[in-house]
């Protein structure tokens, strides 16, 4: 039986003690959805934590005012809360200063800012280096921006485990390389990128280094300074905040030199019909009324997350991943893709079921309350590189339990029995 085997692999003592029931109690959805709810689609969106929900509801229903300009008490408090949220995100990211954090509507918006503002400085023939493991959010904005300036996009290929093949960096990186933009964690394979090697390659040629942190951010506080990147993007809804907000960290020295992206209120210094001058960063990149409630939720989530025992959570997440991987391998016709082991991976596994379409797998799993995602996960180049059209993904968050994994595995056995 797959379950038995998986639990042998994750002995109870491997992880520091984690109060899982308490942790799960911090996420209102589990009470609402009841016990037969096995949410394993965390890479698409995480569930909101109580701290974030409280910040959101409080602001939207009890204390709403627009930010940045009002002087009455409510507006002043809203502005302070918004700046506090910025500071909390900055702290979670290990940023030196709060003003390095731009509030966006999500990772996609953040990466569009990055692509647009960095490409504004490129010349025809300059190169942007991505990877085949990127989410479309870290491909399409670069294509659109590169096309405008005549820059060329290249991509780091994948190795046998579907990781970025960093041995190819020496061929791929040259003086022409002006930007390297890669994911910190693949949303399909869970592979974590060795950012240190890329930073070295970027620094050697003076390229700017952009990291898509959407999938890494929910797995513990970060240290952008140690990473040595120049921009870092993340989404609030994947970080157990609300939908509607995200952030882009831009190294302070760099931010001051970059042109704005969206135009509108709050990002200007002076506007005439002929000409506009722009406010300093981060405001320059925050046009219009920001997603205030969602930003406060993201800040509250980050602050709450920062106080957790990440050693224990990390062990817990990896134990579940091990259980999942072992269980998948034990089912005939099921094939996990991506890294084999637990080294340098987030708790996220995609797989194919021989002869069964991913959507049919997901639909049948849903019968058991198991929520997974089937499709290309907005990563068509990665799937193409693996010779696949689509896959099924199970992604784990801090609140998942062994029962969630087991429900998935039992469901898969049923799928194989019925359809394969």
């Amino acid at each position, binding site marked *: 039986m797959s379950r038995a085997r998986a639990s042998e692999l994750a002995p109870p003592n491997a992880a520091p003690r984690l109060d899982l029931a308490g942790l799960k109690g911090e996420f209102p959805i589990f009470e609402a959805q009841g016990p037969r709810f096995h949410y394993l689609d965390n890479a698409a969106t995480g569930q909101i934590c109580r701290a974030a929900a409280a910040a959101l509801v409080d602001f939207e229903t009890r204390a709403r005012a627009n930010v940045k300009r009002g002087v009455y008490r409510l507006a002043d408090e809203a502005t302070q809360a918004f700046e506090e949220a910025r500071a909390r995100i900055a702290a979670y990211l290990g940023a030196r200063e709060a003003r390095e954090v731009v509030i966006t509507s999500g990772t996609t918006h953040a990466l569009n800012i990055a692509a647009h503002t960095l490409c504004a400085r490129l010349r025809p023939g300059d190169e942007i280096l991505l990877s085949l493991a990127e989410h479309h959010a870290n491909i399409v904005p670069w294509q659109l921006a590169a096309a405008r300036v005549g820059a060329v996009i290249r991509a780091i290929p994948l190795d046998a485990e579907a990781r970025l093949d960093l041995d190819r960096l020496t061929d791929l990186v040259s003086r022409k390389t002006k930007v390297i933009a890669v994911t910190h964690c693949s949303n399909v394979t869970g592979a974590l990128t060795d950012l240190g090697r890329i930073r070295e390659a970027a620094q050697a040629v003076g390229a700017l280094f952009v990291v898509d942190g959407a999938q890494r951010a929910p797995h513990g506080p970060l240290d952008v300074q140690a990473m040595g990147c120049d921009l870092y993007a993340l989404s609030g809804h994947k970080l157990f905040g609300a939908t509607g907000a995200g952030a882009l960290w831009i190294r302070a020295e760099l931010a001051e030199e970059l042109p704005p992206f969206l135009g509108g209120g709050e990002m200007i210094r002076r506007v005439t019909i002929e000409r506009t001058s722009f406010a300093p960063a981060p405001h320059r990149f925050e046009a219009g009324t920001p997603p205030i409630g969602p930003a406060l939720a993201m800040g509250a989530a980050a602050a709450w997350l920062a106080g957790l025992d990440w050693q224990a959570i990390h062990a817990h997440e990896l134990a579940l991943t091990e259980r999942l991987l072992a269980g998948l391998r034990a089912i005939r016709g099921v094939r996990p893709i991506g890294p084999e082991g637990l080294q340098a991976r987030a708790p996220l596994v995609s797989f194919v079921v021989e002869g069964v379409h991913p959507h049919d797998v997901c639909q049948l799993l849903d019968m058991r309350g198991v929520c997974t995602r089937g499709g290309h996960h907005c990563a068509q180049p990665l799937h193409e590189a693996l010779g696949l059209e*689509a896959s099924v993904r199970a992604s784990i968050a801090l609140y998942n339990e062994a029962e969630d994994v087991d429900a998935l595995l039992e469901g898969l056995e049923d799928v194989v029995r*019925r359809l394969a």
Partner: protein
Amino acid sequence: MSAELYDRAIVETAKASAEAQRLSAPDVTVEEDNPLCGDRIALDLAMADGRIAAVGHRTRGCLLTRAAAVVLARRAPGADPAELRSAIASLRDLLEGRNGPPAWPELSMFEPVRAVRSRHDCVLLPFRALEEALDRLEER
């Protein structure tokens, strides 16, 4: 509902899609994909005397898409464009829970899909291809 969605009828019907053939000399060929999931059908129609003489297809997709393609390929030969258009409309009605029984009885197997909106497009994909094929024939 997911349980019924994979009842024997759909599963068995979908399996038959493996044997589907393309036509060697179609009057019209349409390739249609489902932008949200990448599933794809190539549909061929051959005409004779204003009616469908033969249908060929290659379908890459989920069980629902494949079962729908198989029903279409079985039922279309002999029908004229008007009959086909009313079959398409009756399938849409069935998914939306409108009106009476579908034009072809086999389409009833897709009734459980009604509740799962995100799968409507799976069932409709072959029929969208058919619609496009009929449009092109008409334009000639």
